[in-house]
């Protein structure tokens, strides 16, 4: 540690000096924090303050900097210094803003600030400056798996941005399902009529673009590597090529309507699914659509919405496929536009016309004379050439039996997401997994990833690929591979356009990041990566299994093999490792562990308990900051440490904290489960699971289980976090102090 020179810079602005004794803080930084330089400034984030710090750095006075001022989330631009490790002590949002300005509170508030100085000094002392891993390489080429509408759109977007794209399409033609459509639902005002599907034009653009290569009748038979250096084997004769990133646009398979015998599908040609109707419309080409059974012109047609969808019946899809209401309106228009005297009726339970244009399209359908009946179809009967629909009119509350020339079933989409690879992590999860598996998901692998964790993208529910659907919709759980289109969630062509464009931009970003050795979201720009000390590893494989992003392979000897470019820097592996051999330069078991221990622990009889909060930096820490900004008070006994993800919390921190006298510990992470908010998908879930086992540790120490609590916190929970902290303080008052103080 000889070459480490620590400096603490304490800001007196924003009211900090009025509330805290900053001279004392500087003294503590020197005595307890062992800094060589401790300076105060009236306004640290202004140019003078920053210059003062920079001068010390330039003079070689300091290599490790502690900024004791506002939250680490504030003034990040001002406090960005090259070539030094930086930590922050949160005296503003974390101390003076959450404590009352009273004589009574003065002492405990000052103690809080002093501890944050000690913690910050301890943290920064154990940090080193991250360097890019050196693994990076630059490949300006995006692989696009799937030559349907989404894949074609993505390829064009990639090419337009100046990068190369290669499309691998399984069938003998481009265009996918979209090419089978007679027309598409309109995507622009006035949303009044079906419009050309645009596929011919799209294909023409693809073919005349020299940045795009197309492989037809081809599949990806092996994918290995990481962002910036994916090697994909394109079979049968495309060879192995290197790509910077991948877009999976493998689309969907239409639900097999023969599974709906109650709707007479397969019993008579006069019951068709929506794609069947598209084929009839193509045949008619603007003329009146003919009945498949006898070729007579259709005089009336019934559309049955949600056929085999949004239903809990066995073999049905439980979800809504999103596009089918719009599609039925479009198809009913085929009839009305050819001849307004044809009766076209849509039977629905709930009509869903998404998007700004959806409502207009519905209205325009009504204006054209399409009728809509809220009803529940029980059966379609085919008898001696006649088809009749039996349904209950839900408005008039009566059973109806209606003969119809043609019946169209609005069946759903099944994602082509390949093999469901989800490794059950916990026993409970295992059970749940079994329950949700649908056997109708096609099981051929799409990507054939040569990853320890399985050949395809992990799925969330109903076979759709997992992605953080609110914040980072295209990010899958395999870094550098982006899912777009109906493989990600059910959608129509308008939404697929957005998806393709978004995924194309993300794919470009990924290959650019990889070339610099930087992390992708949400720690974008982070250069640190997991460092692994092989000597200590017991080959327990926990890191390999728990890494939510499949970043870790195994070498022949069974040791973990980190692929830095695949890593998202969440630290889940670090939290998982029982022998603690995984760390980051600027974030490790040590940096946090030392901060925990740096706190000045009062005597058991001082009646000053200490509560440790480990708060996820993505949502919980901002929520705590906002509690400060809105001046919500919370206990002065709390000491908060931000963590990258709750998944990075190693249980050693908990047992060390309990052993060194903390009276309560609160873990704050994001929401877990199927509707997770966790920025690292599985991190919060892992942490909750690990903490459910902490009871043993507590029992061994003969401590009450209430002393350790885990919460799911949303970024908007600024009113809830103070309460959680204060409740813990109350609990401790009730159950008494931790006897392990020394």
């Amino acid at each position, binding site marked *: 540690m000889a070459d480490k020179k620590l400096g603490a810079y304490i800001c007196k602005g924003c009211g900090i000096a009025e509330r805290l004794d900053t001279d004392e803080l500087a003294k503590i930084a020197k005595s307890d924090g062992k800094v060589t330089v401790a300076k105060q400034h009236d306004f640290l984030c202004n140019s003078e303050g920053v210059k003062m710090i920079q001068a010390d750095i330039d003079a070689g006075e300091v290599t490790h900097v502690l900024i004791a001022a506002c939250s680490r989330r504030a003034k990040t631009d001002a406090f960005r210094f090259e070539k030094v490790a930086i930590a922050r002590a949160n005296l503003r949002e974390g101390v003076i803003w959450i404590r009352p300005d009273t004589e009574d509170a003065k002492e405990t508030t000052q103690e809080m600030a002093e501890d944050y100085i000690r913690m910050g000094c301890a943290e920064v002392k154990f940090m080193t400056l991250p360097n890019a891993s050196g693994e990076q390489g630059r490949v300006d080429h995006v692989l696009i798996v799937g030559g349907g509408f989404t894949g074609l759109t993505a390829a064009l977007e990639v090419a337009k941005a100046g990068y190369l794209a290669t499309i691998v399409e399984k069938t003998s033609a481009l265009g996918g399902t979209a090419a089978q459509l007679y027309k598409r639902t309109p995507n622009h005002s006035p949303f009044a009529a079906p419009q050309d599907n645009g596929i011919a034009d799209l294909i023409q653009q693809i073919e005349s673009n020299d940045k795009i290569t197309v492989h037809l009748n081809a599949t990806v038979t092996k994918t290995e590597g990481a962002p910036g250096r994916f090697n994909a084997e394109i079979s049968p004769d495309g060879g192995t090529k290197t790509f910077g990133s991948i877009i999976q646009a493998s689309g969907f398979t239409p639900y097999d309507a023969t599974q709906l015998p109650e709707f007479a599908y397969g019993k008579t040609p006069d019951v068709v699914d929506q794609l069947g109707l598209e084929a009839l419309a193509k045949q008619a080409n603007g003329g009146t659509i003919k009945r498949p059974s006898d070729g007579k012109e259709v005089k009336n047609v019934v559309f049955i919405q949600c056929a085999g969808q949004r239903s809990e019946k066995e073999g049905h899809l439980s979800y809504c496929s999103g596009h089918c209401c719009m599609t039925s309106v479009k198809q009913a228009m085929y009839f009305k536009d050819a001849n307004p005297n044809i009766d076209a009726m849509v039977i629905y339970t709930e009509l869903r016309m998404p998007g700004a244009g959806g409502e207009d399209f519905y209205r325009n359908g009504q204006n054209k004379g399409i009728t*809509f009946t*809220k009803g529940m179809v029980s059966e379609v009967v085919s008898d001696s050439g006649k088809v009749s629909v039996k349904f209950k009119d839900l408005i008039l509350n009566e059973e109806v039996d209606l003969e119809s020339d043609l019946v169209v079933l609005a069946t759903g989409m099944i994602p082509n997401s390949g093999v469901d690879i989800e490794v059950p992590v916990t026993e409970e999860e295992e059970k749940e997994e079994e329950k949700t598996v649908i056997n109708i998901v096609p099981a051929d692998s799409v990507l054939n990833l040569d990853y320890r964790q399985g050949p395809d993208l992990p799925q969330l529910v109903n076979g759709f690929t997992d992605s953080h659907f609110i914040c980072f919709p295209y990010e899958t759980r395999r870094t550098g591979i982006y899912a777009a289109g109906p493989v990600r969630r059910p959608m129509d062509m308008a939404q697929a356009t957005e998806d393709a464009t978004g995924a194309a931009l993300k794919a470009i970003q990924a290959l650019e990041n990889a070339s610099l050795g930087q992390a992708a979201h949400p720690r974008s720009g982070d250069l640190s990566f997991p460092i692994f000390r092989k000597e200590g590893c017991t080959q327990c494989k926990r890191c390999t299994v728990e890494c939510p992003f499949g970043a870790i392979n195994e070498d022949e000897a069974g040791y973990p093999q980190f692929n830095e470019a695949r890593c998202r820097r969440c630290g889940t592996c670090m939290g998982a490792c029982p022998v603690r051999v995984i760390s980051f330069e600027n974030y490790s078991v040590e940096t946090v562990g030392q901060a925990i221990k740096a706190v000045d622990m009062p005597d058991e009889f001082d009646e000053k308990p200490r509560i440790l909060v480990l708060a996820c930096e993505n949502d919980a820490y901002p929520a705590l900051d906002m509690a400060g900004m809105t001046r919500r008070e919370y206990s002065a006994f709390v000491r908060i440490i931000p963590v990258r993800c709750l998944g990075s919390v190693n249980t050693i921190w908990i047992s060390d904290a309990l052993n060194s006298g903390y009276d309560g510990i609160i873990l704050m992470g994001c929401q877990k489960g199927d509707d997770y908010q966790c920025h690292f998908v599985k991190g919060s879930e892992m942490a909750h699971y690990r903490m459910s086992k902490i009871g043993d540790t507590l029992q061994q120490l003969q401590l009450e289980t209430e002393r350790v609590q885990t919460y799911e916190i949303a970024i908007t929970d600024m009113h809830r976090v103070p309460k959680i902290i204060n409740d813990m303080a109350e609990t401790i008052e009730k159950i008494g102090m931790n006897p392990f103080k020394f």
Partner: protein
Amino acid sequence: MSNPVTVEKYRNNFLREVEANVEEGDWVKRCMQCGVCSGSCPLGPHWEHPPQELFMMIRAGKRDEVLGSSSMWMCTSCYNCIARCPRELPITHIMHGLAHYAKRLGLSPKNQQTKKFAQKFWDNLSKKGRVNELKLGLSLYFMNGFMEGVKMSLKMQKVGLGMLKTKRMSPFEMLGGHGCKDSKGLQAILNKAREIEEAKISKFQG
């Protein structure tokens, strides 16, 4: 039934008939069945078929039930529904349009009170082109029989005398009353209008 019109259920024949012949009937197909009108109608709970339901019945081809219903006769023209309909249907007008069309076809319920009074009002007005309020009032009192009329007249005696005294009503109106200048011309106009309308609906009368 006097109208041997065959309407197939859930086909659009009746909807088309309504579109062609009922005032603002063209709007019926635009209803999205949200039920806001029925929920807004102060009288809706007392009707057999509130507006939303009537519109669905039209689409379901329930010609006899719709035209024979007393529901639309109960509309008080409060305009609550029009103000609230998210699809901006002129519901009030459609209610009156339906009532009118049913009456014209002779399908409306026999002893419907509103219908009876509406007829009296029309007869009174169309005779001279001016409403004779005295006669109209009395005919309303005696609409449901002589005894009923006497009872009603006695009950309203005070109001009537008050109106006479303040010259809001003239007893001489009883002797024929005032009218518009060209009463003959008025009749000619009305006859012509009737002729046009009858021609229009004849094809739906079977």
